[in-house]
């Protein structure tokens, strides 16, 4: 199947009423949670995971993906109007967006955010299509050793790039791996770390874990202090940017599309990083860097394009190689596994409808989002006025219902609440959850790939060195870990010297 007939079949899939509806639901919920501060795309995806189990895998993936890129659109609205980012990838949009709103130019700011998002999103889908297809053709030759080492590299890089302390990120990754061990050992059939709970024999479910860590603990973090919000009182008019605005934005949009897409591919990259990189890059090459932060359109066009371009980039390693580069993709990965679909280079052969359907859904979803976010912007602004004290009981109720419906067991609800509390305390001590979830999802697959590799080589570890791709990936991850250890060692020596 070549790219164009593939894409055509993808559009046939997405225009089936059920899939179309789920795509719309996804981007709608995405915009909604993007607009509402206090819950981000990861939280919303975790909470809605159980609803995807009853439908086909394609409808589920299309919806979850829609939440992700939909949130990138919605997030800018609150940044511009309220100076509170709806989700983390829109933090940087506050700088110039809110200033533009104060100058009475909220309309063009919102318009450029939506249009830039659309351009970046569409560019990244085209690039994804042309990159993922040949890449998966090449990756078909990959065996367990390659997978093992590439996943190791992904895990190491995500841990390395985590904000704050590296050792804390390592602790989280190890904890994730340990949590992945819980349950019945696939080889010996022995129970591991079930603490006497028969419900844990099948291991910990991804859904209560993710819901607790990202749903419940997020609500607890938001509610601990009184929230005050001021909505910028302004009439939103002239949504379409002027010719002058376009002239200033073309450069940032083009550069944002490329940076966003390529940063999205990298493990640990993603939308948040690319919006920051785009902003600082624009500021650096600008003729008038001092104007950034005073409300200029370049400060919105670049980052808003980049964070959407990153969404498409992130799908490349997931769809072509089966390696989730960030936490959002890890959740999609988990959702596919629940359906018995194993993401990887064989996905395109075994489930072409999922591969092409997802790609086609992103074209359709981005077009829906443009409609949702330009003419209907007033509706979202009204929603901003819903206070959090009304919102959070509803979010909590959804998590309570959702966690129960996985297996119809109250045990899962309790597991979720436990992880919610643990997650809250971890957040307080500035531990990041992303390495934990990624390690939890990848752990069992890593173990399996490791054991299969050893079977292939009759128990010789040399197989990881003799195969070039495996060797390079493992060497890179080892180098990354070593460089940090050496860095810490050097600093420690300096400190010892100071004390002496």
């Amino acid at each position, binding site marked *: 199947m070549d790219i164009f007939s593939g894409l055509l079949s993808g559009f046939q899939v997405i225009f089936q009423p059920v899939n179309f509806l789920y795509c719309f639901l996804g981007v709608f919920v995405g915009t909604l949670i993007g607009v509402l501060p206090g819950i981000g795309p990861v939280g919303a995806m975790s909470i809605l995971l159980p609803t995807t189990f009853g439908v086909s895998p394609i409808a589920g993936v299309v919806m979850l993906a829609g939440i992700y890129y939909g949130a990138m659109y919605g997030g800018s609205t609150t940044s511009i109007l309220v100076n509170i980012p709806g989700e983390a990838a829109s933090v940087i949009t506050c700088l110039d967006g809110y200033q533009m709103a104060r100058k009475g130019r909220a309309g063009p700011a919102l318009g450029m955010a939506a249009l830039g998002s659309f351009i970046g999103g569409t560019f990244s889908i085209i690039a994804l299509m042309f990159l993922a297809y040949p890449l998966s053709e090449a990756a078909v030759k990959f065996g367990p050793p390659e997978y093992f080492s590439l996943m190791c590299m992904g895990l190491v890089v995500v841990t390395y790039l985590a904000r704050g*302390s*590296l050792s804390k990120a390592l*602790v989280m990754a190890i904890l994730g791996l340990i949590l992945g*061990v819980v349950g019945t050992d696939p080889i010996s059939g022995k129970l591991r770390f079930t603490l006497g709970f028969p419900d844990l024999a099948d291991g910990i479910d991804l859904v209560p874990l993710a819901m607790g860590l990202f749903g419940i603990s997020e609500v607890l973090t938001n509610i601990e202090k009184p929230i005050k919000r001021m909505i910028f009182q302004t009439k939103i008019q002239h949504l379409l940017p002027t010719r002058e605005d376009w002239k200033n934005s073309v450069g940032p949009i083009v550069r944002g599309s490329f940076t966003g897409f390529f940063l999205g591919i990298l493990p640990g990259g993603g939308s948040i990083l690319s919006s920051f990189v785009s902003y600082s890059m624009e500021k650096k090459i600008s003729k008038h860097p001092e104007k950034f932060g005073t409300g200029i359109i370049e400060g919105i066009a670049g980052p808003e394009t980049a964070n959407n371009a990153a969404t498409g980039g992130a799908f490349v390693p997931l769809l072509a190689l089966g390696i989730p580069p960030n936490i959002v993709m890890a959740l999609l990965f988990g959702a596919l596994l629940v359906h018995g679909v194993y993401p990887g280079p064989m996905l395109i052969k075994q489930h072409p409808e999922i591969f092409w359907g997802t790609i086609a859904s992103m074209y359709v979803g981005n077009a829906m989002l443009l409609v949702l976010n330009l003419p209907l912007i007033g509706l979202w602004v009204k929603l901003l006025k819903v206070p959090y*004290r009304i919102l959070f009981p509803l979010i909590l109720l959804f998590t*309570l219902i959702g966690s129960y419906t996985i297996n119809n067991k109250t045990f899962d609800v309790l597991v979720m*609440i436990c992880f919610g509390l643990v997650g809250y305390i971890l957040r307080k001590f500035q531990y990041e959850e992303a390495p934990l979830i990624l390690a939890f999802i990848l752990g069992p697959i890593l173990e399996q790939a490791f054991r299969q590799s050893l079977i292939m080589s009759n128990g010789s570890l040399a197989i990881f060195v003799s195969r070039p791709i495996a060797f390079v990936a493992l060497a890179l991850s080892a180098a990354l870990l070593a460089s940090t250890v050496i860095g810490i060692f050097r600093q420690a020596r300096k400190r010892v010297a100071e004390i002496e």
Partner: protein
Amino acid sequence: MAGKEIYGLKKRDVIPALIWIILGLAVMIASYQMSLGTLHTPGPGLLPFLLGSLLVIVSLSIFINSLTLFKKTSPGTSETGIWAGIEFKNLLIIVVALVAYPLLLEKLGFLITAFLFLFVLFSVFDSRRWFFALGASLLTVSITYTLFVLVLQVELPSGFLRFW
């Protein structure tokens, strides 16, 4: 003022590090009892044993590094507390409501449990009159019931209200 940092660590990181060390040791002991096997024929305990020891090593480094901060900083400088300004009462109410929900769910059924859950949270956190909380909870429960049970055909416990 913000306290001193070292590799992104602060003084308060000592306590979680201690917990990780204990957890790591417990994992190691439990895995050892499960039989480790050898590298060529790994037993069920080998992988968790390695993970447990890694956890101990990494958290030991956190523990030692954050402990050195106690020596270096003069007693006058304190860290801005992470627990400052938190309304513990609010947190406690939510946690109690959350834990009560699964415990009551099977006995009282979804309709009553969800209603109580929402009513408590709405009336505690919203300063308006109690009948607002009553109306809002009734409305939300009926909408979610219609959506999940009637439309999506999700099974939720009915408790002693057998008629539905």
